[in-house]
């Protein structure tokens, strides 16, 4: 039988898995794999400028295409630079297969050059991780990795490849089937249990759907809308669940949680049945646990048994894939009489509509309005901070739109690489990144990747010269002591005791130009529309639009960390 090297088998496996793009950064331990990739042109290689950004790019590619994102990095620092990206993907259930180089087997454990125990380091932030110790296991392990990454609750898988294993000759076969005795994801839904839940739904006076990221991951939006319309039960979403139903749908109330809409949080507090799908009841949505949805019975559908009844007590647990479950629901649900309840929700909406102060100068709302008007279909990628929460409040996510962000881990620096990965996967869709000036600088080196890949992404920077979300907490809860949040602070401000600050650095416009991207600075409301029009004209180059934002802009409403609805701050 024909014998080939591990390196060759890896490339063959990637082709059989239908991998179109590989996000890779080379090094000594993976140079042979790079060499094999050089000899083919089916798999296109994206060369980012830093491995952390590399994972985010593969992650965003996966989130926006539904395919598995594939990464290849070298051993040692190449591998450790994956850590933040793996944790990000793990928390948000993103399917990735990451290959790391490793020193040859006889060197493992010897503190060899660029040796780290990456499987050990990443054990708690991957769905599965393994070092390939024998050449004959390689094909099976790769096959299993892709299967584990994309099935059940998706997640990142790491495969560590010792250099000598990869050089060894062995079978050229890439297995067709997977059989892992400890891993049999259950997707089908228990009909009896679902019917009990639906009976509860039909009896409820004030029922409420809570849709989390699981609805989006399962691509169940369409059938979910059917169920919502048929039952006339209103919907709140988590930040990750945004878009589970069009945010313009009359039955959509808003996001719940720390920065949720007043009406959405009131609805959660007053509902008598919280029918939740694909959420882990993170502390950012529940606040103080025993006062969360105090009058409600709770139904919880989730693919992960471990997410059910962990943070809150659940009356009817249903382990299932969201799409399977909702599709079955569509068969059985009956209309509910919710008109009184809907009227109450409307009253809350009118009492405290989601809005920002308008004081004549340009604010985030003006920018969001422009985005909502100027783009029919779009992928919105955010970074982490104030702009992220505001985007999740104000940018419409309709059927043709998608929003992605680091929701669980809250990884600053996700925005720019996220936009790159999304655009690579969706060349025909406008991709708009919204970042703060802090997060943008955490992976700014990726401008080179965006330029070289000829990606016309629109990179909005909300520049308020501060790390705004931390500043917001300092303003509200720390007596306006803006410690470590002023991005102009340094030797000069220290020397002058905070009297003097230099000009903001970097100059994002010049920076964009030096990378070969376009840069536009917008200071006035009237210039917003033109800036987006200008950006649309760039079909092969990224455009940075720097919006100068007042540092006093805040995200409201806000519930204090660990607080309850009564602590909701509407504005100040």
């Amino acid at each position, binding site marked *: 039988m024909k014998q080939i090297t591990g390196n060759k088998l890896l490339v063959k496996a990637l082709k059989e898995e239908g991998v179109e793009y590989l996000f890779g950064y080379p090094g000594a331990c993976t140079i042979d794999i790079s060499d094999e990739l050089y000899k083919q042109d089916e798999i296109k290689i994206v060369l980012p400028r830093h491995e952390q950004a590399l994972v985010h790019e593969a992650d965003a590619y996966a989130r926006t295409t539904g395919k598995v994102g594939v990464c290849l990095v070298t051993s040692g620092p190449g591998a450790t630079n994956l850590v933040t990206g793996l944790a990000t993907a793990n928390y948000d259930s993103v399917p990735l297969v990451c290959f790391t180089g490793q020193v040859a087997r006889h060197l493992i454990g010897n503190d060899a050059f660029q040796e780290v125990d990456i499987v050990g380091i990443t*054990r*708690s932030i991957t769905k*599965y*991780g393994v070092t390939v110790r024998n050449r004959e296991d390689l094909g099976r392990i790769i096959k299993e990795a892709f299967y584990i990454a994309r099935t059940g*609750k998706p997640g990142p898988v790491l495969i560590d490849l010792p250099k000598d294993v990869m050089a060894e000759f062995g079978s050229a076969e890439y297995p067709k089937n997977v059989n*892992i*005795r*400890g*891993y049999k994801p259950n997707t089908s839904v228990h009909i009896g249990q679902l019917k009990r839940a639906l009976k509860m739904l039909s009896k409820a006076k004030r029922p409420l759907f809570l849709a989390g990221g699981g609805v989006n991951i399962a691509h169940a939006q369409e059938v979910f809308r059917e169920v919502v319309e048929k039952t006339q039960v209103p919907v709140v979403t988590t930040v990750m669940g945004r878009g589970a139903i069009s945010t313009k749908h009359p039955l959509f109330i808003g996001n719940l949680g720390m920065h949720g809409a007043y009406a959405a949080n009131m609805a959660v507090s007053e509902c008598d049945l919280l029918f939740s799908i694909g959420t882990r009841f993170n502390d950012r949505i529940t606040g103080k646990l025993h006062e969360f949805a105090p009058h409600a019975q709770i139904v919880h559908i989730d693919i992960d048994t471990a997410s059910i009844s962990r943070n809150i007590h659940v009356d009817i647990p249903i382990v299932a894939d969201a799409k399977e479950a909702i599709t079955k629901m569509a068969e059985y649900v009956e209309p509910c009489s919710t008109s009184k309840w809907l009227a109450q929700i409307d009253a809350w909406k009118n009492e405290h509509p989601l809005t920002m102060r308008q004081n004549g100068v340009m604010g985030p709302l003006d920018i969001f309005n422009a985005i909502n008007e100027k783009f029919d279909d779009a992928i919105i990628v955010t970074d982490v901070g104030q702009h992220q929460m505001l985007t999740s409040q104000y940018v419409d996510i309709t059927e043709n739109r998608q929003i992605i962000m680091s929701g669980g881990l809250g990884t600053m620096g996700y925005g720019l690489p996220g936009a790159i990965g999304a655009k690579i996967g969706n060349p025909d869709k406008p991709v708009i990144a919204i970042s703060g000036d802090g997060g943008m600088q955490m992976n700014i080196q990726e401008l080179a990747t965006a330029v070289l890949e000829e990606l016309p992404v629109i990179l909005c920077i909300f520049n308020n010269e501060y790390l705004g979300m931390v500043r917001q907490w300092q303003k509200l809860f720390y007596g306006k002591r803006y410690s470590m949040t002023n991005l102009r602070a340094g030797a000069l401000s220290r020397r002058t005791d905070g009297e003097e600050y230099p000009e903001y650095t970097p100059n994002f416009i010049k920076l964009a130009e030096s990378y070969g991207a376009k840069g536009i600075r917008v200071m006035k409301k009237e210039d917003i529309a033109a800036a987006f029009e200008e950006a649309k004209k760039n079909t092969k180059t990224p455009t940075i639009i720097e919006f100068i934002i007042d540092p006093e802009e805040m995200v409201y409403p806000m519930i204090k960390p660990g607080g309850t609805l009564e602590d909701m701050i509407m504005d100040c």
Partner: protein
Amino acid sequence: MNKGMKKRWISLYVENQVGVLSKISGLFSAKSYNLDSLTVGTTEDPTVSRMTIATVSDDETFEQIKKQLNRMVEVIKVIDFTDVFVRMKEILYIKVFNCSAADKVELFQIAETFKAKVIDYGKDSLLLEFVQTATKNDAVVKLMKEEFGKIEVVRGGSVGIESINVMER
């Protein structure tokens, strides 16, 4: 909270692979679960290892522990040993130093009472082997610490298997 706080046991079938022990123990530290004892060894199938895990936890936490173990790819099967009939024993060695002649006599009596064995003997020291439940071993260690000046203790952790017919623990 803390409803049903008590000692519980899990029997776990896992893949006999490098890193699995570290993954299981890592789960307990990462999620702040109590880990009382953990034993591991291979089974009749050399590709499968079996663990017996003892933990002190409340109802909710214990449910989480089982679920979290179950979702691991390397875990083949999780069996709750808490309220089923199992045979479960732990090996315990106690070396007693500076024994007088009277001490030795007492130690032989202790050994008889607890069905332990005296397995080694020195001029002024004795080595005892106990194979009994972990709870009884706790009692023995407490007793020996009170009775004798200098002792050295090593314990194996509980190992358990489901009963066939005998309805006792």
